[in-house]
C-alpha cells in the first residue's frame, strides 16, 4: 500500500488521533527486575556478556542545549553497571564524534575488567580511508576511551556503496578495508591483544555479507562476532521496507550456522517499534498488561540463542530502567507470541512511515537540511493521525495546525524539506536505504499543500 492510498483509507478516520499520549510508553512506575540480568557467553573468548548492550549513539543532551550531558551519562552508566549491563557500544563518529570521549570519562570510573567496550573503524569520510588515518582512528579510540585495549572492534557499516565516487558495495569494501591493508592491521592487533574480538557491522548489500562470511569460511579472517539489524519487522519482512534490505532471519541463520555470535542493532528500529498505534498497543496489553511495546521488541531480539547482546541507544534513564527490567531476566518469546508479533509486523508495515531510525549517518546534509528530524516529525504526525490530505476531512484544520506548528518547532525553516535540492549525496550513507530526496520532496509537497489549503 503506498502512502497516498493509505491516506485515502485512514486519513479521515480519527481513531488513531484519539489519544496520542497513549501511543508510547506509559509513565507508570517502571517494571521491577525479577531476577539477574541474562548473560550470554562468547564462544571465542568466553566473555559473559549481558544480553542488554548500552548503545552510545543517542546520548542525552543538556535540556535546551546542544551540549552533551556528561553528568547524566555518568548517572546512567552507573545505573547500568549496577544492573549488570557490561557491553558498551560506541563509534568514532557517534554524537558528532564526541561519543567515545564521553563514554571514556563515564566508564573509566569503573574497573576496566567489569565492562566490554565495542567501537568501530568508521568508513564514512573518504579522507579517513588511508592506512595511516585508519591506524590513527584506532589509536584515537583507545585514547578517547581511556583504555589500552578494545574488547569488540567492528568494521563499521559494511555493505554500503559510494556512488558519487564510482564505488559499488564491493568496491567500497575493498578500497576501505582490504587494498590499504587495514584488515591486516586489525588482525595483527587482535593477535597482539589490543583487539580482543574482531567483527563487522552490516547494513545493505547482501553480496558483501556473503562475501565476508566466505572469507571466514576460507580462513582468510576469523570473525569473532557480527553486528546485524534484527527486529520483528525485519525478521522476514525486510524487503517490504526496502528491497535492498535483507531479512534478519537469513543473516542470523547464516551466522548461527558458523557459530558466530550476533550482536543486534536497531531492535526498536530507531524507536519505531516503541511508538505504536492504539490498536497494536491494545493487543499487546491484552497479552501482557505490564509490558510496553519496546519490551516486546526487546524480547523478540534476544530470543534467538546465539544472540550475544542486544544494543539499545540510551537517552533517558527510564529507557534504561525499562530495558534492564525486560532482560532481568529474559523471558524468551513463545511460539505463540512469535506468531502474534508477525501479525503485528504486518499491521505496522501497512503504515507508510519512513523507515528512518535517526542514526544520522546521512548528516550533515551540505545544504543544511535536518533530514532525521523531518522524517521523525512526519512519522509522528502519521502515527497520531495528523497527516490528512483532504481539506474536507473533519479533522483537517487541527491536523494542519499540529503538523505545521510542530514542523516549525522541531525544524528551523532554513533546515526544512524545501531546501533539499535533491543532490543525492545522502543516498549512499543511509543504512536503511531510504530514498531520502524523494521522501523529502514528498513531505515538502505535503507541507505546501497544507499551506495552500
Amino acid at each position, binding site marked *: 500500500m503506498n502512502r497516498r492510498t493509505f491516506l485515502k483509507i485512514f486519513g479521515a478516520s480519527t481513531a488513531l488521533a484519539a489519544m496520542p*499520549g497513549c501511543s508510547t510508553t506509559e509513565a507508570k512506575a517502571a517494571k521491577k527486575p525479577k531476577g539477574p540480568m541474562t548473560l550470554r557467553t562468547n564462544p571465542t573468548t568466553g566473555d559473559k556478556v549481558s544480553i542488554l548492550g548500552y548503545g552510545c549513539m543517542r546520548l542525552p543532551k543538556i535540556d535546551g542545549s546542544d551540549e552533551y550531558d556528561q553528568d547524566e551519562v555518568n548517572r546512567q552508566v552507573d545505573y547500568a553497571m549496577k544492573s549488570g549491563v557490561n557491553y558498551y557500544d560506541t563509534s568514532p*563518529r*557517534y*554524537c*558528532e*564524534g564526541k561519543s567515545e570521549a564521553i563514554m571514556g570519562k563515564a566508564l573509566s570510573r569503573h574497573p576496566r575488567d567489569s565492562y566490554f567496550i565495542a567501537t568501530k573503524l568508521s568508513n*564514512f*569520510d*573518504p*579522507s579517513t580511508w588511508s592506512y595511516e588515518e585508519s591506524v590513527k582512528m584506532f589509536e584515537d579510540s583507545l585514547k578517547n576511551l581511556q583504555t589500552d585495549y578494545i574488547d569488540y572492534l567492528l568494521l563499521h557499516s559494511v555493505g554500503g556503496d559510494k556512488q558519487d565516487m564510482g564505488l559499488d558495495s564491493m568496491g567500497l569494501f575493498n578500497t576501505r578495508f582490504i587494498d590499504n591493508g587495514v584488515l591486516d592491521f586489525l588482525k595483527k592487533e587482535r593477535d597482539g591483544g589490543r583487539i580482543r574480538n574482531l567483527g563487522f557491522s552490516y547494513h545493505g548489500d547482501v553480496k558483501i555479507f556473503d562475501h565476508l562470511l566466505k572469507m571466514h569460511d576460507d580462513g582468510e579472517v576469523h570473525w569473532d562476532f557480527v553486528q546485524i539489524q534484527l527486529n520483528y519487522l525485519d525478521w522476514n519482512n525486510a524487503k517490504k521496507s526496502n528491497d535492498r534490505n535483507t531479512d534478519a532471519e537469513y543473516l542470523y541463520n547464516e551466522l548461527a550456522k558458523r557459530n558466530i555470535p550476533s550482536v543486534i542493532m536497531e531492535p526498536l528500529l530507531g524507536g519505531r517499534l516503541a511508538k505504536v498505534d492504539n490498536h497494536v498497543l491494545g493487543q499487546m496489553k491484552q497479552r501482557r498488561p505490564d509490558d510496553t511495546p519496546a519490551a516486546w521488541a526487546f524480547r523478540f531480539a534476544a530470543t534467538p540463542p546465539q544472540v550475544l547482546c542486544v544494543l539499545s541507544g540510551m537517552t533517558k534513564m527510564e529507557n534504561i530502567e525499562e530495558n534492564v527490567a525486560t532482560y532481568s531476566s529474559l523471558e524468551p518469546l513463545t511460539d505463540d507470541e512469535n506468531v502474534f508479533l508477525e501479525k503485528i509486523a504486518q499491521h505496522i508495515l501497512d503504515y507508510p512511515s519512513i523507515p528512518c531510525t535517526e542514526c*544520522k*549517518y546521512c*548528516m*550533515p*546534509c*551540505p*545544504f*543544511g537540511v*535536518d533530514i532525521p528530524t523531518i522524517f521523525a516529525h512526519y512519522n509522528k504526525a502519521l502515527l497520531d493521525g495528523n497527516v490528512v490530505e483532504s481539506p474536507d476531512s473533519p479533522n483537517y484544520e487541527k491536523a494542519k*495546525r*499540529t503538523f505545521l*506548528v*510542530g514542523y*516549525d*518547532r522541531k525544524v528551523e*525553516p*532554513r*533546515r526544512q524539506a*524545501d*531546501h*533539499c*535540492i*535533491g*543532490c*543525492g*549525496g545522502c543516498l549512499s*550513507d543511509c543504512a536503511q536505504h531510504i530514498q531520502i530526496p524523494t521522501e523529502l*520532496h514528498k513531505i515538502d509537497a505535503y507541507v*505546501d499543500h497544507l*499551506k*495552500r489549503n
Partner: protein
Amino acid sequence: MLKYIRIALAWIFILAIMWLFLDFSGLARTWCGWMAKIQLLPAVLALNILAIAIIVGITLLVGRIYCSVICPLGVLQDGFNWLRGRFGKKTSRKNRFKYTKPQTRVRLTLLVVFIALLMAGGIWAFAAKVIAPYSAFGRMVGSIVAPVYDWGNNLLAAESEATETYTFYRVNGVNAWSMIVAGVAVVTFIVLAVWSFIRGREYCNTVCPVGTVLGLLSRWSVFGIVIDVDKCVNCGKCGKRCKASCIDTKNHWIDNTRCVDCMDCIDNCSTGAISFTRRPAHVKVSSMQLDISKTNASLKGPRKVQPTEESRRQFLVTGAIIAGTAAVATAQHVTDGGLAKLDVKHDPNRKVKITPPGSQSWDNFANHCTACQLCINQCPNLVLSPSTELDTLMMPSMSYVNGYCRPECNVCSTVCPTGSIKALLPEERAMVSVGLADVDYDHCLAASVGTSCGNCARHCPVDAITMVAIDPAHPHGRQRPVVNAAKCIGCGACEHLCPVAPISAITVNGRARHAEL
C-alpha cells in the same frame, strides 16, 4: 455620563488597534481591520469615500469625537494627560490649563506644509509620515510593544512545546523590527508624552493635520459643548481643566475647532451649566477667518502625483561578489552526524525594487504609504520589513531572505488602509506579477557545477521555470533553469529556495508597474 461613554469607546478603539498591530494569528485583521481603514489620513490617501464620508459626517454632526475615540494617538495623549492629573505634582494636578488664543495661522500653515511634503515624496514625505497620527501610533506599537508581546507569546509557546500542545507557537518578529523605525517611534513617543503631559492636546490642535482638518469641519458641527450663561457662576473651573485649552470662560465661548468632545467639562461643572447639545447659530462664528474652502479644495482635490525620478528606482548594480557558491557543491563530505552551518543569505541588488502584490506600481505604492507598519507586522511569510533606504525610509520593503511571497496569501493587501497596497482576492494574487526572475548561470549550481538541483523549478508555484539540458545533444546532461516571463509572478520561491549563498543564483527584479497575467 457622556464622558464615560467616550472613555469606554476610546479604550475599545485603542486596544483593538494595538491588537491589530500585535496579532499574528489573523484574527485581529478579520475583526478589527476596519479600524485602520477609518483613520482619516489613510482613508484620504486610499480615496476611501465611504470612510471619509462617515468621518466628515460624524464631525459635522458632533464635532471632533474622532480625535477622542478613533484616533489612537489622541487617546494615547489623553492617557498621559490623565497620568498627570493622577500622579503629577500635587499643585498642578487640577486646574492646570487656561484658555489660549487659537493658533489658526500656524495650524493652516502646517497643514499646507504637510500636504506639500507628502506630495513631494521621497525623503520629504518621510517628515510628513512622522507626523501622521495613526501611522505614528502603529510604529510605536510595532516596535515598542510588539517585541514584548512576542516575547510573552514565545514564553507561552515554550510552555506549550514542553507539554506538546499546539495552542501557542513561536513567532519571529525580527524582520519586522528595525532600529530606524524603533528610533523614530521612541522619539515620537517621548515628544508626545512630554508635550501632552504638560500642554494637553496642544499637539493635536496645532501640528496634527488631521486635527486641523477636522477642526475646520467641526466649526459647523450641529452638536457641541454649550455653556448656559444663566446657570454659569463664572468659577472658571471648566477652562482650567480643559486639556484642549479651548474654553473661553470669560466670553462663555468654546472654540469648537479645538474641542475634542472629551466631555470632561460637563462633569467638572458644579452648576450643570455645560451640556452637550445643539449649538446655537451665534456660537458657530469661529475665529478661523481664513478662506476655508480653498484649503479644503487643496486637500480633497485630485492629488498631484510627483513623477518618480528614474534615478530613484535605479540602483547601482554592483556585481555582488558571490564567494563560496561552488564551495557548497565541492565541500568536503563531512560525516559527523551534526548539522551543517548555514550560509548567510543577502538580498541581491535589484534593478527595480519589488513592491507587494496589490500595490500596482511603484508610484502608487510610494505615494500612498504612510509607513504605519501594519502590513509588515501582519505579513505571515516574513517577506516585508521596514526599508532603511532614504527614499523609502520605514516603508515596507520586500526581501526573500526569510521567506517568499506565497501565492495564496493576500494579507498585506487586505490590511493596508491607505490604498498603497490595494485589496486583492486570494485567487487574484497569483495572477499579478510583481517581478520577474532572472538566472545567473555562472553561479547556478546546476548550470555551472552540474549538480542536479532544480530546486527553483520544483518550487515555482506557477510552473514558470523549466530545467533544460544545456546541450541539446545530451538531454540528460547538465541542466539549467529557464524562466518563462509570461508566467513568472515574481513571488520569490525560486530566490528564497536557491541553495546558492550569500546571493541566490536566481533573483527577482521588481516590475515598476505590475502586470496582470
